[in-house]
């Protein structure tokens, strides 16, 4: 029988039970990645049904230009899924793109940035690939990180490179210049001579792969350089370069960020440009760096031992790094795919968008998705050594 004492003992546990119930109700009302997974499960079935029905539809309606793009996008709310947190580079670029994409897409849908960090960006990719194949979920991420390992046969959870449809990169190739502090060396030849004495020049880096693949390339080619990894980004690397913690930097890029953060070291002790990569710096930039002549392109530096495999692996790593590559899930109707390709290209070449990019120290331009489209065939023909270099320069954690 329930006594007063028993009733008192039960009271606290009733509170706990009510708290638990309240929490579950509130949490169940919230949205998140799991909801997308559950929501897309039936949608996946729909997509599968749609895919299986496609041949029949094509037979019934071979004229794809009758596909009503306006109606497809009209009134839709499209999630622009980013695999990194708010405030980061990807997030900022995505938010910059929103109004331009909304204007370029037929039907003028509304887009919202959804941050889904986790798994080094993999969780965001998985979310896009779980969404229905209707082109109404959009993403942007460094595709090379997962695309290439998957094509090389490494298993990545819930990722299939062939399920990804790249839609272009809304950025041009940035100008990256490698430079050295003048109190360390004033030419590449001096660095080579120092190498013969057993001295090695240090470069700051955040992690293997990425922009610092140029330095990794030099290491692979036998140059007397090394990387000090672990810095948190360009600003930290430039700070270390400025205080002499590292001897050189692969990020003496033509941006106002370097003009601001690198101004002190350019003034004293001064810097010497050693190489450029992808796009040559203009005279104005060389003047800013101290009135130097144009240095050679990276692969033209003297004293390097560059095998064919090294050259192929390096070039491919530049093509397939896929930084800030936009994409949708493959399998969307072809007009939808084309609509995205056209929209991203239009945004990328829009002067107003390029002005906004300039505030982010990024160069405007359009990076077509072709390297990723051709990647399966290209990678199949690579030698083991070239594959090794590709993996190394992309900074991939695969064996």
């Amino acid at each position, binding site marked *: 029988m329930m006594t007063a004492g028993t009733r008192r003992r039960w009271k606290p546990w009733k509170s706990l039970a009510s*708290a638990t119930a309240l929490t579950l109700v509130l949490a169940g009302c919230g949205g*998140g990645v*799991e909801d997308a997974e559950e929501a897309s499960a039936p949608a996946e079935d729909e997509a599968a049904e749609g895919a299986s029905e496609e041949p029949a539809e094509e037979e019934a309606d071979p004229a794809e230009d009758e596909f009503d793009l306006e109606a497809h996008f009209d009134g839709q709310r499209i999630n622009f899924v980013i695999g990194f947190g*708010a405030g980061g580079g990807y997030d900022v670029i995505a938010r910059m793109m929103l109004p331009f994409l909304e204007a370029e897409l037929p039907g003028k849908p509304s887009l919202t*940035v959804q941050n889904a960090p986790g*798994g080094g960006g993999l969780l965001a990719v998985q979310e896009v690939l779980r969404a229905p194949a209707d082109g109404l979920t959009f993403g942007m991420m460094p595709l090379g990180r997962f695309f290439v390992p998957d094509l090389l046969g490494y298993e990545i959870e819930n990722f299939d490179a062939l399920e990804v449809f790249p839609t272009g990169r809304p950025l041009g190739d940035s100008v990256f210049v490698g430079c050295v502090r003048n109190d360390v060396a004033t030419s590449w030849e001096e660095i080579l001579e120092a190498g013969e004495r057993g001295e090695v020049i*240090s470069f700051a880096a955040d992690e293997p792969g990425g922009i610092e693949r140029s330095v990794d390339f030099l290491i692979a080619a036998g140059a007397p350089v090394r990387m000090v990894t672990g810095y948190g980004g360009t600003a930290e690397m430039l700070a270390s370069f400025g205080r002499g913690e590292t001897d050189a930097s692969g990020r003496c890029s033509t941006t106002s960020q370097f003009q601001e953060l690198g101004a002190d070291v350019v003034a004293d002790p001064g810097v010497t440009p050693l190489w450029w990569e992808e796009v040559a710096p203009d005279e104005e930039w060389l003047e800013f760096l101290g009135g130097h002549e144009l240095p050679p392109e990276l692969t033209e530096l003297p004293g390097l031992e560059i095998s064919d495999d090294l050259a192929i692996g390096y070039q491919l790593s530049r093509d397939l790094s896929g930084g800030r590559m936009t994409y949708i899930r493959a399998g969307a109707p072809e007009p939808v795919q084309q609509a995205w390709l056209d929209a991203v290209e239009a945004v990328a070449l829009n002067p107003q968008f390029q002005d906004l990019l300039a505030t982010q120290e990024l160069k405007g331009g359009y990076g077509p998705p072709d390297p990723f489209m051709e990647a399966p065939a290209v990678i199949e023909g690579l030698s083991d050594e070239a594959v090794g270099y590709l993996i190394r320069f992309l900074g991939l954690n695969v064996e």
Partner: protein
Amino acid sequence: MGEALVEAAGLLFAWGPILGFLVVLPVALLSGLIPGGGLPTAVVILGFAWTLDPLVAATMVVFSMAASDITEPVPSILLGIPGSRTAQATILDGYPLAQQGKAGLALGASYTCTLIGGLIGAAALLIALPMARHLLQYFGAAEFFLLALMGIFAVGVVSQGAMVKGLLTSTFGIGIATIGYTPVGNVVRADMGLTYLWEGINLTPIIVGLFALPELIDLVASDTRVSKKAGSTLLKESRSQVYEGMLLAIRKHKLLLLRSSLIGTFVGAMPGLGGSAGHWISYASAQATEKGAKETFGRGDIRGVIAADSANNSSDGGVLIPTVIFGIPGSPGMAILLAILIIGGTSPGPSMVTDKLPFTMALVLTLTIANIVVVPIMLFAAPFVLKLASIRPAVLAPPAIALVTLAAYSSNFRTADLLVAAGFMVLGIFMKAYGWPRPPILIAIVLTPILEQYMNIATNAYGWSMIQRPQFLIILGIMVVAFVYSAKMQRGAGSTQETRSEPVDVA
């Protein structure tokens, strides 16, 4: 400098920034009061960054950050739940004070310290700005590594009388912190085949599980209020206690307040280190140097609250320095501020102290305004806030548990975070029951990634030559002296932080 300050004031006292502050104020206050985490105010502001004036957006972020830092000690003191970023060390003495019916004392001291600490941090920022860039060039990865190590050493200090237990729990915390991507390469550690663990374990569910839930469950299971005093007594004494706490901070312990504020500002100014280490170093420093602190800290010594909270808020000024001058954010909020600055066309760098000095001064003034506006509000509201300590657990626990659980879920919107919180809840209950200190886990989780990052950089960039750097030797010397002094004082230290021991009268 004076002209820039006047121009900055002119920029701030305009409708745009003022309306921005008014909009952000209630949200920021609420954000800090929610135990275990808060609303992503800065993220919401970022969403409007393109439509807002850059100054308005930037000052709103700084204001919201400062305001929520002022309110974060409230759950620490009243419920024993540390903040996700700051107000972690505050629980060590703030919560015992609340249990002794002296929550008003703790809150009064806390608000006063946050106000004065915040003003000192802002003033230090103003003074240091012109030369900050040159000063900070002398500190590199080797020194940042030592400072992070100094924060880890706080483990020994906060685990007085239970050093072995403290070291074991901090080792466990280090192990937890190493899960996920290494800070120096694309290698994933200890992921157990789970993608969820690639980015490591999120801090908020750990705080909720290790601190918030065990404390709330303990209240419910024992059916006792936080404060042993009745609500009517608490309310009656609240105003006098708050006033007494203010006086203690300003008069009796003003040197401690000043020293802790300077520590918080200095550590916060270290690029990449952030303000997380500052309040732990400040707390440990106070425990090592204040008279009788070894016996009284952790049992409701008001000096522990003063040391922690002065450094908490003064670090807000400190973290602005590397953010605006080097473009290196010292906290997640600063990362968003940086994004807003860049979106608005303002590149961080030396120009922030030359051409754009008025803009930078406006950010500093915003910190000052936030402190001046929010602290009186909180002081006025203190008696009502204090009632939390007298609410029956049957009434307090359900919404509090729901809120903290939501905070754990909302950090990443992943159900796995709730499982993490549940797992740590079980651990926290046992640790609390058997007297194992929990704060060392928190210290280790927060500081280990920073420690590992800078240890890697320092050993690769300098090698053994780092010990030839004068700045390295100075910091190392301070650490050695503090450690030896602390170890001497450790002999005969009392019981651990976890027991609800008798109250200490050090007011």
